[in-house]
C-alpha cells in the first residue's frame, strides 16, 4: 500500500447527549485517522454510536443537547472548537455528507436542481446561470441520464437509486476532501446498492477524497473498504485493514458479527445470532468490557478491568484481552464441535 497523507485526525473524541439533565456518552474516546483516497468503514449494530461519530465530525447535532469534546483535526485545525459559522464554511465544501434515506434527505418541496445549487451558492462565487450549468454537470457525473429534466423534478418523482445519486451529487458538488457516507446503501435494493458503491468508487478515483463509510453490512465492507473500525457501545473494539479483519478477526464482537452472516454453502441450518442487544445510552455499563454481558459463558476474569486498545500486530488494534479466551457458545465440547467431528 502506498503511503498516503492523513486528512482527518480524530483524537479522544467524546460525544454525549443530554437525557433528562444528564449527559451520556454515545461516542467514547474514539481516535481514528482518515487518509487521502482511503475508504474507512465503521461497522456495528444499530445504536452502537457509528452515526453519532459521523455527525460529530462537522457538528451536525442539535447544539443544545449535545456535548462534543476531544479533537477533530482537519488541516491543522480542531473542528470541535469551531463556531457554527466557521463549521458552515467546512460543511459541504471540505466535507460532504451522504445520508441513509435519500427520500427523507431531500426537501420534498424543492426542485432537485435548486437543492444541488444550494451547496454551490454558499461555497462558490458562481452566478446563478453558472450554478445551473454546474448542476447539470454534477447530475451527469453521478450517472443521471437526463440531467436537464431531472433538475426540474421533485424528489418524489425519482426512483430510490436516482435520489441517492442526487444526494451524492449534493455531497460532491464542491469536490470535498472528505466524504461521510452514513449507510448510503441501506435503503436501496441490492442491484442499486452495487451501482451506488461503484459510483462512490469512481468519484473517489477522480477526487482522491477520503471516505468514511458507516454501515452494518459486512458485505459492503468487504467490497469497498480499505480499513475497518468495529464499534460497540460507543467504543472502537477492533481496528484493522480489511484483509486482516476478515482473515484474522480477534475481538469477540467482530467474530460474532462475522459468524452471524448467513452462509449459503454451510450445512448449519441455524441462523447464528449474538444474544442480547446493544445497551441503551442510559443503561450502558461504563466500566469493564462492554461486550461481556453478551458472552456470559466467558469467564469474568478474562476481561480487563479497564479495557484498552492493544496493538496486536502492525495496524491491528483490539480492545480488552478477552479475545484470547473467546470461543463461541457450545463450541467447546458442545453441539457445533460434534457436528464438525461428524
Amino acid at each position, binding site marked *: 500500500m502506498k503511503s498516503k497523507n492523513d486528512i482527518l485526525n480524530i483524537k479522544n473524541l467524546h460525544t454525549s447527549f443530554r437525557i433528562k439533565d444528564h449527559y451520556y456518552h454515545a461516542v467514547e474516546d474514539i481516535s481514528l485517522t482518515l487518509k487521502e483516497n482511503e475508504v474507512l468503514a465503521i461497522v456495528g449494530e444499530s445504536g452502537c454510536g457509528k452515526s453519532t461519530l459521523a455527525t460529530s465530525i462537522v457538528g451536525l447535532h442539535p447544539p443544545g443537547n449535545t456535548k462534543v469534546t476531544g479533537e477533530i483535526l482537519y488541516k491543522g485545525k480542531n473542528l470541535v472548537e469551531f463556531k457554527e459559522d466557521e463549521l458552515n464554511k467546512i460543511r459541504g465544501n471540505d466535507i460532504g455528507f451522504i445520508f441513509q434515506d435519500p427520500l427523507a*434527505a431531500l426537501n420534498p*418541496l424543492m426542485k432537485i436542481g435548486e437543492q444541488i445549487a444550494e451547496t454551490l451558492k454558499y461555497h462558490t462565487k458562481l452566478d446563478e446561470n453558472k450554478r445551473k450549468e454546474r448542476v447539470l454537470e454534477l447530475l451527469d457525473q453521478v450517472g443521471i441520464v437526463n440531467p436537464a429534466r431531472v433538475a426540474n423534478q421533485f424528489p418524489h418523482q425519482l426512483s430510490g437509486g436516482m435520489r441517492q445519486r442526487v444526494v451524492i451529487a449534493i455531497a460532491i458538488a464542491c469536490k470535498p476532501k472528505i466524504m461521510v457516507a452514513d449507510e448510503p446503501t441501506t435503503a436501496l435494493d441490492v442491484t442499486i446498492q452495487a451501482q451506488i458503491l461503484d459510483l462512490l468508487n469512481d468519484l473517489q478515483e477522480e477526487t482522491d477524497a477520503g471516505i468514511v463509510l458507516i454501515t452494518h453490512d459486512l458485505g459492503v465492507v468487504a467490497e469497498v473498504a480499505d480499513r475497518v473500525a468495529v464499534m460497540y457501545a460507543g467504543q472502537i473494539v477492533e481496528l484493522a485493514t480489511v484483509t486482516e479483519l476478515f482473515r484474522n478477526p480477534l475481538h469477540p464482537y467482530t467474530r460474532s458479527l462475522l459468524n452471524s452472516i448467513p452462509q449459503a454453502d454451510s450445512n448449519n441450518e441455524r441462523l447464528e445470532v449474538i444474544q442480547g442487544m446493544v445497551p441503551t445510552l442510559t443503561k450502558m455499563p461504563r466500566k469493564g468490557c462492554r461486550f461481556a454481558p453478551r458472552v456470559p459463558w466467558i469467564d469474568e476474569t478474562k476481561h480487563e478491568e479497564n479495557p484498552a486498545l492493544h496493538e496486536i500486530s502492525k495496524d491491528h488494534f483490539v480492545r480488552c484481552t478477552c479475545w484470547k479466551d473467546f470461543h463461541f457458545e457450545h463450541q467447546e465440547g458442545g453441539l457445533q464441535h460434534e457436528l464438525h467431528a461428524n
Partner: protein
Amino acid sequence: MWKTIVRRVLVMIPQLFVLSLLIFGLAKLMPGDPFTGMITPQTDPNVIEELREKAGLNDPWYVQYYHWIVNAFHGDFGDSYAFKDSVSSLIGERALNTFWLSLFTVLLVYLIAIPLGIYAGRFQNSLFDKGTVLYSFVTYAIPTFVLGLLILFFFGYKLDWFPTSGSVDVKYDAGTWGYFMSKLYHLILPGFTGAILGTTSVIQYLRSEVIDAKTQDYVKTARSKGVPMKKIYSKHIFRNSLLPIAAFLGFTITGLLGGSIFIETIFGYPGMGQLFIESLGQRDYSVITALVMLFGFLSLLGSLLSDIIMSIVDPRIRIE
C-alpha cells in the same frame, strides 16, 4: 387539472340538490310560519288563512319546493317577511359587512399566529415557547361569548375607546375617507376577538410542524451543505410547516362570508351571523333557507379550493 376541477364542480350539483331538499324539508318541519307571529286574539283567522294561501304556503311541499328552486336559480330567494326586503339584497349587504370583518380577522390571525408559531417551534421549551403554549391553552379554553363580552365591557364601555355596536357611524357618506375609517374603527373590537380565538389552532399547528420539521433528514442535509440555520428556517422549514395551514386556506377563504354568530351578535355587527340568528328567531324561512344553502355551497367550494391550493403548494399532491 382543469378537467378535474370541472368534474368536481359538476359533482357539486347533485350534492347541492340533496342539500336543498334537506334544508327545505327541515324548514317546513319547523313549527309555525311567518304569520304565526302576527296572530293576536283580535286577528281574524280567515285573514291569516288568506295570507297563507296567497304566499303559497298551502300548496303541496313539492310545488312549494319547485317554485323555490326555480326562483333560486334566477337569484331570487323570495322576500324576507321580517325585513320586508328581497333576500338577495338583504344577504348581499350583510355579506359585504361580514366579508370585511372576516378579512380583517383572518389577516390579524396570520399576522399574530405565524411568527408566534414559528418562533415557539424554533425555540422549543424556551420561555417564549412556554408563554405561547400558555396563551394557546387560555384562548382555546375561553368561550367566544365570554371573551367577546369581556372585551366589549372593558374596551367598549369602561374605557370607551371603541364603538360597541354597528358597522359604521351613520354621519358619514359611503365612499368618503371618514366612512372608511369609521368602518375600520368598528372592526377593531370584533376583529380582535375573532383573531385572538382564531390564532390558537394556527399557532399550535405551526409550532408542532416546525418541531417536527427540525428533526427531518432534509434539514440535516441542508446543514451538511453549510446552509446557515437562519436560512434553513426561512427556506426549508418555513414552507414545509405552512402546508397544514394551506390545507385549510380554501375553507378560510370561503369562510370569509360565513361570519360568526357569537361575535356579530355580541358586537351588534350587521353581518351574516347576526342575520342568521335573527331570521331563526323570526321564522324567516326564505332567509334561513337561502343562508343555509349559501353556507353549504361555501363548504363544498372551500373543500375544492383547498384541494386546488394544496396541489399548487405541494408538488407531491396532484389532483387527477
